[in-house]
């Protein structure tokens, strides 16, 4: 690495630290001069070079008309600070909701942009660090809802990091931007890690399993719908909520209670354990089992269904994390 790029990296790190210090987590933000940054864009520097070229032309030909045109462009550059700033200024941004996802998946984060009066704000670029950028145009007064994908790198509460909101509209000569740090209540579950080998070991351990014959009257749980299944068993309620196509499982609850237990994964580090347990929960849920969750200091009684699955996953996600979001370390 050459020394120049080392210096650049150091500067970039210092800048990020400074931005992080300045940008506190918040639940709503109003964009005004206090938090908007504005600097010339690359095209803006090109434009200044053009102004310089015109100035040279005017001076060398001693031509006052060209001076006037040159100053017109320079003034245009200056007033475009005002106009570009106005593209973002006066916007109110609120987080609306976020989806809980497994670590590594992108979380869809819904944000609301509101403005008091109709004003055309074109080409507003939204991006979470490392995420897909999204370009939106806001035109009407009131709320506009936008869904941005945020990458997730650690389990716990969803903390997508800094959201960059930027625009170069209208002249493209300056770039106005801000960083926003939103916190969400949504959880990032641990990334599931397959544990099939161990599961097959445990098959005969005396834990009950259900008979699995459909046609019985007792509702057991949901499983993913497969083509050819009776339409009478489709879980329409879940489908209507856009949670996917599931079919209801009916079976005899012989003794289908399974424990997903922390203590069974001894000899691994915390994240490994949690990942395997997450996989286990998903498996049980998919198989329509009735399962419980044991974590040190907490226990979730066996149950089944979507709500149960969610609360189990949430416990796994938030394990070892206090409410204020002291985040767990990343998996090595």
């Amino acid at each position, binding site marked *: 690495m050459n020394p120049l790029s080392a210096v650049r990296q150091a500067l970039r790190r210092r800048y990020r630290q400074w931005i992080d210090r300045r940008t506190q987590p918040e639940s709503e933000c109003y964009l005004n001069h206090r938090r908007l940054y504005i600097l010339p864009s690359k095209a803006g520097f090109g434009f200044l070079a053009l102004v310089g070229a015109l100035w*040279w032309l005017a*001076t060398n030909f001693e031509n*006052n*008309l060209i001076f006037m*045109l040159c100053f017109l462009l320079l003034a245009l550059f200056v007033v475009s600070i005002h106009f570009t700033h106005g593209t973002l200024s006066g916007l109110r941004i609120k987080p609306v909701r976020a989806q809980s996802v497994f670590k590594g998946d992108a979380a869809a984060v819904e944000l609301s942009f509101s403005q008091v009066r109709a004003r055309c704000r074109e*080409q507003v670029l939204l991006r979470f660090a490392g995420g897909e950028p999204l370009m939106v145009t806001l035109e009407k007064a009131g709320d506009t809802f936008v869904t941005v994908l945020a990458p997730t790198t650690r389990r716990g509460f969803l903390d997508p990091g800094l959201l960059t909101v930027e625009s170069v*509209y209208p002249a493209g000569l300056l770039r106005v931007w801000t960083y926003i740090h939103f916190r969400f209540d949504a959880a990032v579950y641990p990334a599931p890690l397959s544990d099939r080998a161990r599961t097959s070991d445990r098959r005969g351990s005396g834990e009950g399993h259900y008979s699995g014959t459909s046609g019985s009257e007792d509702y057991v749980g949901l499983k993913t719908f497969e083509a050819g299944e009776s339409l009478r068993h489709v879980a329409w309620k879940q489908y209507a909520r856009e949670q996917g196509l599931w079919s209801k499982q009916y079976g005899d609850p012989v003794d289908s209670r399974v424990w997903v237990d922390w203590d069974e994964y001894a000899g691994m580090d915390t994240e490994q354990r949690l990942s395997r347990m997450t996989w286990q929960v998903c498996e049980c849920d998919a198989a329509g089992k009735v399962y419980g969750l044991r974590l040190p200091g907490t226990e979730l009684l066996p149950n089944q269904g979507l709500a149960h699955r969610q609360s189990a996953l949430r416990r796994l996600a938030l394990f070892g994390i206090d409410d204020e979001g002291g985040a767990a370390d990343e998996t090595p």
Partner: protein
Amino acid sequence: MKRPDWQLSRNGLFWVLFAFAAVILLHLDHLPPWVTALAGLCILWRVLEYRGRVSFPPWPLKAVLVIGSVAGLTLVYPSLLGLEPMLSMLIAGFGLKLLEMHHKRDAFALVYLAFFTAAVDCIFTQEIPNFILVLVTFVIAATALVSINQSKSRGFSMSPSYTALKMMATAIPLMLALFLVVPRLGAFWSIPMPKNQAQTGVGDTLSPGDISSLVGSDKLAFRVRFDGDVPARERLYWRGLVFSQFDGREWRQADFYGPDQPILSRGSDESIVRLGEPISYSLTMEPTNRRWLFALSTPTSSEPGIQRIRDSRLVSVDRIEQRQNFTIRSWLDYRLEPEGLHPYREEMERHLPPGSNPETMRVARKWASETPDVEALIARVLQLFNRSFIYTLEPPLLGTHAVDEFLWETRRGFCGHFAGSFAFFMRAAGYPARVVGGYLGGEVHPSENFVTVRQYDAHAWAEVWIAEKGWVRIDPTAAVAPERIEMSLADLFDNEDGFLADSPLSLIRFRDFEFVNWIVLQRDYLDYAWATWVLGYDQRQAEFLKRLLGQVSMFRLILLFLVAAGISLLPYLVKWLIIRQRVKLDPRDAMIQIFCAKMARAGMPRRTGEGIFDFACRIAAERPQLENEAMAIATTYINQRYDKRFPQQINELRRMVRRFNAPKRFE
């Protein structure tokens, strides 16, 4: 990572093409036709490509086009370093770049190029209409700049031009402040000016028909603003050239060490006796591409680069290639070289080619011996002119012995004929005499101490050297047509065909109408103000800033910029203040806000993003006693707001919300 906005939008493409077309139209006169054709072809190709008819040209074709254009330019222009070859190169490059414009950054480069090439047009002409065209091109280019930053999905729309105009308008006060304040440095190095500029105005030779060809034009020659009153019209002899050499046909400037060379300028000062008070005035010359200035005798000027030469004229060291201002003082009463001419000068000022115009020679010698007094002789010649000569714009053509033919046969002529033959006659009679070229009179603007001199005011007269009086101005035209001295040619030759023959639609033809006359005067004044305040501002910058600011200090300059910025942003400030005062809310929304505020006070605020119906459902679930009222308000609101079939009656909603009362929950 590639940003999602790197592609060029459709509207952006359109406006870039439009800006390019505007630039080409602006430069139509300055480009070789094949460059224009190439540029037009590139635009056409790009449009067809956009519509899917053709694809982008393959690279070998592009290479051929590039090499071909460079080769063409080297063939057309002897050197590629001048302004015009550079311009052609820029335009050709612009066109070829269009054929590979895919990205936003290409479009940016092209828009910048459009700004630059449009500005270059001001080097060729500095007239107001032309500048307006350049400004229009700037607006189009600025629109292109805005449109390439708009979302891709937009089709063609004019909307970016409103934004561009708004930005331009906001920029103007700041531009003016910069224009007033930023100091001008002199040229870094000299650059060849465009070559197409012909020399105009009175030329450095004079043959009998020369002046009458100028009468066809109403083009501006120069303008003068006097510090005091404008002198009487018959004293406004704008002296530009002195013709001392005659070859039998043409009068030329004396070639001391090359015409117009500022030699002997120091020594000549002693040979001028200035009488009375000088008058001072500022002269704004139109470009002539020649060196001499037109001034009243006897002039001095302290402008740098201006020198006075021995025949009491002002000459500029550099050719006058742009409109330029000079401050001049003149003494209208004077004696020029009264104490005698150096023998070689006397010889030169009396020289005639041998054998030329024998009849005139004979008569002149005869009259000289009959009338020994020079002034009496002059009076006698002028009387001859007065009695039997006709002043006309369309004199008959003359042969070898032009003076003979004119004086004794045709007797019809213009000022050049009279001045030339008078000087010839005086020389033939043995007196030093010469022809002087310049302009006479001009149009005096009543209110402004200001005179406009046009090409048709061109004039020629004579000077005769008389012992002790020096060079005396004799205008033989005055003897033939005294009215020429008192009124302008426009009034004199209003109906004659030769007058304004080159400008058939000139407004000056219709000046009998008061309204047209008023327009002509206003146009002249605007032109003058433009020349002095805009084109020549650098010459008066220091003085003007002092007058504007009282004292040129950093603090006051900054204040000036703040005032300019304030004026720029004033409309936005006002708008902002008004908006802050009243946010206009739909009355139905306002009612719902009151409803939500009541619920919030009752400990149940509406959540972010929660629809009003969802909110009502939640109220129904959590506070069953409010269910009916809340649901009624929500449905009424929804019907009123979104269902067009319902009559617009917000009173009902208002009544319901007013009556609504949510008690705090007691737990």
